[in-house]
């Protein structure tokens, strides 16, 4: 029965004690892994063994384990979240690997995402970009009628596609330039598409683009690696839309 087959894997994992530690790769063996383990469950097994041996477990970020929280900042064999299309690390299963495989596990590497410990990075720079304009200012008060503001269905759909972003930072990790254009483009587009977002559209794109630079992200050179890395499959058309919004803002 395939259910009883187990795999033994060699993991080459980035270990770094703190933000200032230079860090280095350590090699571990993952034993008794079945094809049903998720990648994070595989790491849990390795950590159980490490703890039993009195060693420091591998520190990694995780939260929902259902593919929507965006915490698992791991580059696996050179691809963010392991490179399977539209997949976070928790949704990557060990059936994608073979017995005897060697797997490299590294944290997101970007100046804007300092490594805190092992595979955990600080993604607060994405919050800074959102704080620069990723919102709409509106007065509170009575709940408006649902159909008071009409939004055509295709526009609502497109805005929702952009809103799928979970802020995981895989686009930055996959980008050879560490640019945050897909993340920022998705938020700028989501709000620019909707009537509620239009009044602040010009100021928003200016402020968010400035924030990207201040946070230390790189510049986009249209490689489109971000779209391939995105666990939600966010399209680079939203970067084009942000560029369009930016051009418009220059004349507003």
């Amino acid at each position: 029965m395939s259910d009883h087959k187990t795999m033994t894997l060699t993991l080459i994992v980035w270990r770094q004690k703190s933000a200032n530690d230079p860090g280095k790769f350590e090699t571990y063996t993952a034993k008794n892994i079945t094809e049903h383990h998720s990648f994070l469950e595989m790491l849990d097994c390795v950590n159980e063994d490490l703890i039993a041996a009195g060693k420091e477990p591998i520190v990694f970020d995780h939260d929902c384990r259902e593919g929507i929280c965006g915490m698992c900042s791991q580059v696996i064999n050179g691809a963010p979240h392991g490179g399977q299309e539209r997949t976070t690390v928790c949704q990557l299963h060990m059936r994608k690997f073979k017995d005897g495989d060697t797997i490299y596990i590294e944290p997101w590497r970007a100046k804007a995402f300092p490594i805190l410990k092992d595979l955990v990075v600080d993604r607060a720079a994405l919050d800074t970009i959102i704080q620069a304009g990723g919102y709409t200012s509106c007065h509170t008060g009575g709940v408006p009628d649902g159909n008071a503001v009409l939004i055509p269905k295709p526009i609502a759909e497109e805005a929702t596609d952009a809103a799928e972003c979970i802020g995981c930072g895989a686009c930055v990790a996959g980008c050879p330039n560490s640019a945050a254009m897909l993340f920022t483009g998705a938020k700028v587009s989501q709000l620019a598409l909707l009537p509620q977002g239009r009044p602040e559209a010009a100021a928003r794109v200016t402020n968010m683009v400035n924030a990207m630079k201040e946070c230390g992200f790189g510049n986009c050179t249209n490689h489109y690696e971000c779209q391939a890395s995105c666990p939600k499959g966010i399209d680079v058309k939203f970067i084009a839309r942000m560029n369009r919004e930016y051009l418009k803002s220059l004349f507003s």
Partner: protein
Amino acid sequence: MQILTTSIGRKILMAITGQLMVLFVVVHLLGNSSIFVGADGINAYAKHLHDLGPLVWIFRLVMLSFIAIHGIYGIQLTLENNAATPQAYAVKNLSKATLSSNNMIWTGLLILLFIVYHLLQFTVRVTPDIVQGVDALGRYDVFNMVVTSFKNGGIAALYVAAMIVLFLHLNHGIQSFFQTMGWNNDKTLPVISKLGKVVAVVFLIGYSSIPVFILTGILSK
């Protein structure tokens, strides 16, 4: 002026100057193809250009400014991008980036070197291979000069190599222009990418055909 400082602003300036230089590459190819008419074709074309006088110099200064803007921002952007990625991954598995998109700075700098050589050769005419003279109608004999130089296999090969580098640069550059200007979406991107490649191939074949035809003797005096 925030267009000069922000990431997207500088990108737009690079895209516009890049695309205007692509237009020059189109016009230059059309002009060059007058060599296939023979000495009468290209010598007459060169004389018409030179008779424009000060306009030629204005045009040259404009082209120089395009090269400067495109080049300076290109270098700045590459340095910033390297700084944004201080530590490389031990393993990097790229799925969308290409030989073209990864090497824009190097193909760009090589094209710049080629332009300097090309101007010293056929515009300033100071390289040792240059044969200067006038044709029967008293015009500068561009045809004889070009054919003599391209009879040298090394020079012909260098030109073809430079056109391969230009192809690599424009293969990424032409489609990139539309994305940067925001004139793109998920439906147009695949079409624009293919068209960009086709145009880059046309340049490669068109420009390379001149040294190749001369070297092989298909085009001769």
